[in-house]
């Protein structure tokens, strides 16, 4: 599904990703962990195509295509979804309007029929209930005046509505209380299937108790310094990032 080879990227001339290689197969959930400033969010944003990040080397293939060659909207239509760490507030654009425009664009691209207002509303209300979002949030401006938790629920709502083949969750757990965290995790788990994959970027092991990953990668200084199974997350939790960095340096 996703093959990253020796990916390098910089922001404002400063190199953040120092050669990342990662292979994600359909059906797998990968967790990317690391301390602040390790490049986790940069990786997520480069995959989504944010243009403040300059790719300086390497390749990314997504479902057989050169991902880096595609505009952000094309990446989304091809099935890539980024759940933002800081979802953007868009005053004046109603959430439901944005969701419908996006979903129908995606459906059209997949060769599916666009949904009319009635069927769309039925679907979006069902999904909103699933992520515990009050219906009034559908009619507000996108993310405007939403609390941190409500913004994250809105991201997961979009994910479950769009049914992407690859979901990249950028620190979706940060700022969430345990109840919200469980709801987010349920939303993610309900989407797990043999033909979908997820890349869960997180600082804490906590989320991974609810979204159990198949693989865990530890990022430091823009490189993956260690990969392993879900036990690696527990080990990190017990011993801290200092341990693994030290371990990497001496290795």
């Amino acid at each position, binding site marked *: 599904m996703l093959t990253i080879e020796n990916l390098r990227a910089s922001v404002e001339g400063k190199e953040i990703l120092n050669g990342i290689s990662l292979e994600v197969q359909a059906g797998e959930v990968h967790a990317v962990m690391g301390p602040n400033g390790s490049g986790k969010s940069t990786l997520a944003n480069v995959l989504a195509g944010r243009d403040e990040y300059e790719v300086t080397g390497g390749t990314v293939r997504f479902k057989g295509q050169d991902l880096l060659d595609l505009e952000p909207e094309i990446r989304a239509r091809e099935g890539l979804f980024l759940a933002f760490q800081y979802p*953007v507030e*868009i005053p*004046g654009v109603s959430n439901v*309007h944005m969701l419908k425009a*996006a979903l129908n664009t995606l459906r059209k691209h997949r060769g599916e029929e666009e949904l009319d207002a009635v069927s769309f509303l039925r679907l979006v209300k069902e999904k909103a209930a699933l992520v515990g979002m009050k219906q009034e949030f559908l009619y507000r401006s996108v993310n405007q005046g939403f609390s941190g938790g409500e913004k994250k629920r809105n991201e997961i709502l979009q994910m479950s509505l*769009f049914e992407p083949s690859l979901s990249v969750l950028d620190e979706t757990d940060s700022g969430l209380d345990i109840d919200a965290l469980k709801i987010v995790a349920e939303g993610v788990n309900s989407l797990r299937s043999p033909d979908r994959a997820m890349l869960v970027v997180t600082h804490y092991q906590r989320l991974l108790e609810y979204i159990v990953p198949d693989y865990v990668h530890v990022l430091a200084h823009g490189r993956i310094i260690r990969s392993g199974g879900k036990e690696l997350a527990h080990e990190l939790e017990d011993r801290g990032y200092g341990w693994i960095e030290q371990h990497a340096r001496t290795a």
Partner: protein
Amino acid sequence: MNLKTVDTAGSNSMHAQPDTHPDPQVRPYLDIHEQGREALPGERVEWHANWRHGCLQRFADQGFPTLRDEEWRYTSVRPILSKRFAPAEDSGLMPDSSAYRIEGIAHTLVFVDGIMQGPAAPLGMDAGIRVDSISRVLENDPERIRPYLGKSAEERAHGFSLMNNALYRDGVLVEIGQGVRSDAPLELLFVSRTDAALILPRILIVARNNSVARIVERHVSETGTSSLTSGVGELYLEPGAHLDYHLVESQSDSAFQVSGNWAYLSRDSRLDFHTTTVGGALVRNDLVIDMQEPGAQCNLMGAYCLSGRQHVDNFTTVVHSAPHCSSNEHYKGVLDRRSRAVFHGRIRVAPDAQQTDAQQANNTLLLSPDAEIDTKPQLEIYANDVKCSHGATIGNLDEQAMFYLKSRGIDGDKARLMLIRAFVDEVLEAVGPDSVQQHVKALMDSKLSRLPISTKSG
């Protein structure tokens, strides 16, 4: 209400002398008066004739405004003066009004090149609303409008409004009866048909005590005609009256429009005045609101979307003459290419107008580095117990929001339109009648879909 009989400024013996007038830009219009004065309405009504001639004299004296006039600093009328406009012959043909019909508006009065077509009173109108042609009223019962007509000439009159006073040929009087409450908008549709036509709309609205009514003043062009519309509207709101007024300017991009509306608000009356501008090469909208008695309130909302080399100047003056009045003003503009907008917000709070609440905001979205907005608040506060605020913002499209929408699969152009519409919607959503709101939104969408949008990104 503080109403005086219009001063009989000047007299019949005063004649501007067109042949010898030194200003070549004014002379043709003086000629129009000289040649057509017999046909002008109200010439046999002494007070009216005197007033007209007084205005003609003032027009001859002061001519058209120039950039040296403080109130016209950012708007040059040279493109108007370089052309020659004259009243069009009345072709007697009704335009195909179905082409301009707004769904949901049942009562429309059509004016072609400024001349009212057909009977004045649209069928099925609320019986409490009297609609008459001003020329007819001047013939039959001139005293009925004597307290109202021409009061606007007393102050803040510029060459264009004086020219309307001196030369107007027809107009409409709408009198909303005491206590009448009408939700159905009455539309005054001005169709410009003849190229180079001089169109001089004259609108007089009298909203009696505790009446509620909605008026739409709409300007369209039949084909890409380049006409000059120089209109004057006078709006009188008696105690407790509520008038919802919509000025919709969607004429051709080569049309010129100078529109002046003067409103006089008495005790506890309320005026909602919405201006939507998408058409016109050069448009100047003067709006003067005088809140003369306590408890009056006004909401002035404006939305404009410009491209090419369009120039739109909204010059607003809100006068708080009495205590306990509130005014709220919000204008939002979207400017593309080399278009230019001017917003001037003058607020005057008289010495005894305590407990005044006056808010003003002008927000601009610049889509091109070549577009320009000149925004100027002008607060003159002579009372000490007032709440006044004003703010202006100028910005570009939010790149973070653009990326967010694109990351959801939404096409860049569509995302851009969504954000621009969201920006102006704040003002458009405040448009009261659904029919009018749908119409101004459709106008905005149509304009936006035609924008080349110079700052392509992503």
